């Protein structure tokens, strides 16, 4: 094998132009450039991802023999059962089939219905995750946009940009530890301050109503500077001449923002939305450190649910991977919708230039 390829190469004419031909071939060059990251992607993302799809059809704890169970893992997390109620007083457990627990009970007059799930925790975790994304993303992006515009208009200094990005440079676990102390109901400085200005003690991570919002708050603080820098870079690409021309046409600041800044920022905003929404759906570290999914399961997000299946339970790899596949499909759908809706692959600046 080696001998043949050697001889065949020696037969071919001396090729001083080999590399230059290679350099001229755009497709080959492109592949060469992405090759290092492609190898990493296939090895550390592609292979495990495909493997977990296979595992999701098995009952396996990684240590003893795996057993093929078909769709049972998906059934366990996804299957719902709809049960009408005969009367308002009827106990939910009387109408639910075996193996099903109450997910939602709706009472309409004298009747109503109960929706049961095999593992209501999965759907609750999905709901918790969506609530988290809604608490996290809009505020974070708005604040980042505001900061970016301020930086561009008023205070553009490298030092300020450095400070903005500082929270993002801190490891998540340390940020969470820091806020456990800051937000502690009795010993935390924030609560002492709140009590002094007359707002009274707040539970934050310890209260089921505030824990999720507290985690969102921590991550907004952590990510808004970084997001602001991204948007700031986008602002820099908008030609100043457009603003000058519009001013001549009589446009005020608000009109300029709505008609020039926002449309031309669209590709950057789409990138920011896509990456931050995916990241937000995958919230885990702050939860794991600050609340461990509690209190009373109020911060059990989808990734924490997956983690629990493996590390808190009997290494349920099948259920964990099935849940991961479901999350993957949700993220793909959400991302495609975003890109389609906001046409993130086109830039209005292309037409301008």
């Amino acid at each position, binding site marked *: 094998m080696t001998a043949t390829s050697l001889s065949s190469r020696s037969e071919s004419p001396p090729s001083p132009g080999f590399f230059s031909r290679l350099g001229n071939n755009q497709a080959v060059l492109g592949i060469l450039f992405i090759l290092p990251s492609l190898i990493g992607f296939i090895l550390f993302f592609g292979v495990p991802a495909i493997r977990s799809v296979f595992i999701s059809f098995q009952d396996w704890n990684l240590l003893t023999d795996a057993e093929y169970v078909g769709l049972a893992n998906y059934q366990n997390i996804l299957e719902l059962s709809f049960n009408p109620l005969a009367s308002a007083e009827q106990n939910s*457990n009387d109408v639910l089939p075996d193996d099903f627990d109450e997910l939602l009970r709706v009472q309409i007059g004298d009747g109503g219905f109960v929706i049961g799930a095999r593992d209501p925790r999965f759907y609750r975790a999905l709901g918790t995750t969506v609530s988290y994304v809604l608490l996290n993303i809009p505020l974070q992006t708005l604040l980042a946009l505001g900061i970016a515009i301020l930086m561009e208009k008023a205070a553009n200094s490298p030092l300020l940009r450095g400070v903005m990005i500082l929270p993002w440079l801190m490891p998540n676990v340390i940020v969470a530890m820091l806020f456990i102390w800051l937000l502690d109901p*009795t010993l935390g400085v924030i609560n002492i301050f709140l009590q002094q200005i007359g707002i009274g003690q707040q539970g934050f991570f310890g209260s089921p109503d505030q824990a999720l919002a507290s985690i969102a708050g921590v991550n907004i603080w952590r990510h808004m500077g970084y997001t602001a820098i991204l948007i700031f870079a986008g602002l820099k690409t908008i030609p100043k001449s457009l603003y000058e021309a519009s001013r001549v046409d009589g446009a005020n600041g608000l009109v300029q923002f709505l008609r020039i800044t926002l449309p031309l920022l669209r590709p950057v905003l789409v990138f920011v939305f896509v990456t931050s929404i995916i990241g937000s759906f995958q919230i885990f570290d702050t939860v794991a450190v600050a609340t461990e999914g509690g*209190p009373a399961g109020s911060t059990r997000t989808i990734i924490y649910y997956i983690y629990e299946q493996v590390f808190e339970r009997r290494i349920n790899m099948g259920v964990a991977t099935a849940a991961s596949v479901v999350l993957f499909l949700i993220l793909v759908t959400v991302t495609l919708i975003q890109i389609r809706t906001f046409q993130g692959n086109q830039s209005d600046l292309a037409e301008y230039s």
Partner: protein
Amino acid sequence: MKRRSLLVVLVVALLLIVTSVSAQEAVTIRYQLWDSNQLPAYQQCADVFMAANPGITVTVEQLGWDDYWTGITTGFISGEAPDVFTNHLAKYPEFVALEQLVDIQPLVERDGVATDIYYPGLADLWTREGARYGLPKDWDTIAVIYNVALFEAAGIDPAVMDEWTWNLEDGGTFQQVMAQLTIDTNGNNGLSPDFDPTSIAQYGFVPDGMGGAYGQTQWSALTASLGWTFNEGPWATSYNYDDPRFIQTVQWWADLNLVHGFAPSFEEVSSLGASTLFQAGNVAMTMNGSWMIGTFLGSEFDVGFGRLPSGPEGRFSMFNGLADSIWVGTQHLEESWSWVKFLASLECQSIVGASGVVFPAIPEAAAMSQQMRADAGVDVSAFVEQANQEGGTFLFPIADYAGEISTIMTEAMDAIALGTARAEDVIPDAAAEINDLF
């Protein structure tokens, strides 16, 4: 030709490396534990062991509780778990189910190792159907930890703890003392008719959380004093969580905050923990395990250790014992076994006992631990007397699906503690879900 000769050279070199490695006698055993307070004592054990066994090197590794178990689990899978590790009763049934622990019973029989030198019952906790998965290293009981100055300020003699009582109806003298030590912002204590439970300056008691499925440092002493048991003994396949005695005790525990205001809220306790709140200095009492003695002695004020309250059926503490287990993936079973034998011997346990950090499984070594504290002027007899009292302890419940049980119960217990659900509404459902696991 050139390439082939290079290959030969490479293979020869590789063989030389392999043979030289296997020719070396030294075997390294990795040993893991989670308690940093115990690290020095076990390092000392390892030094003594290595001096006696020149062919074996023992490396002692310590990780915090959460990382420890995550690391053990991932280690099983990646093949990087330690040869020998400190095991917990709440965890080891899962490891048995996953076939990750060496059954050491044949080795115990072969070497004639005595398993009756420990506190009664400790060695048996680690057996199932004739197999044995660890040798006992230490035990722990629960007691009341109190702030000496706050008792003095309230004019209460800590000797009250020697005969205080608890019951479901009015909480007994335990609750009375708690009330007397709770002071609102107007200076009234919990016994006064003017007491305002919504505005507290000093709490009488801080519970160590809600206790999840086991309530080891929380309600388990109280439920036991009513005659309630978790299950019908080790490896049972059903739990008695739906018993009214259990349900009412759990509600009483939550009501200490929700109704009476004698204890800080669950929100306040959950993030930094009861021991941090206690050490902040404005809480009179808490309940915790003997492994925390050193931590509490590190407070900036004087602390004392008092007996648990005695209930209708008597005074009981949960009795938990740790053991050292060998991982099935070890490459050095004989050396690991020698190390485990040494850890379980009077020689090593005396070293641990002399450190005073925990109570070793062998009574003589445990007495050394108590003596060491006594020499330093600290009375830890509340823990030891409970262990020595005839029938004064009950064992940590051992059963399959501990992780599942914990997840289910913790969620229900959190809701009760927060006041969003009543025990009688959520516990029966949780109990049914748990009994469906088996």
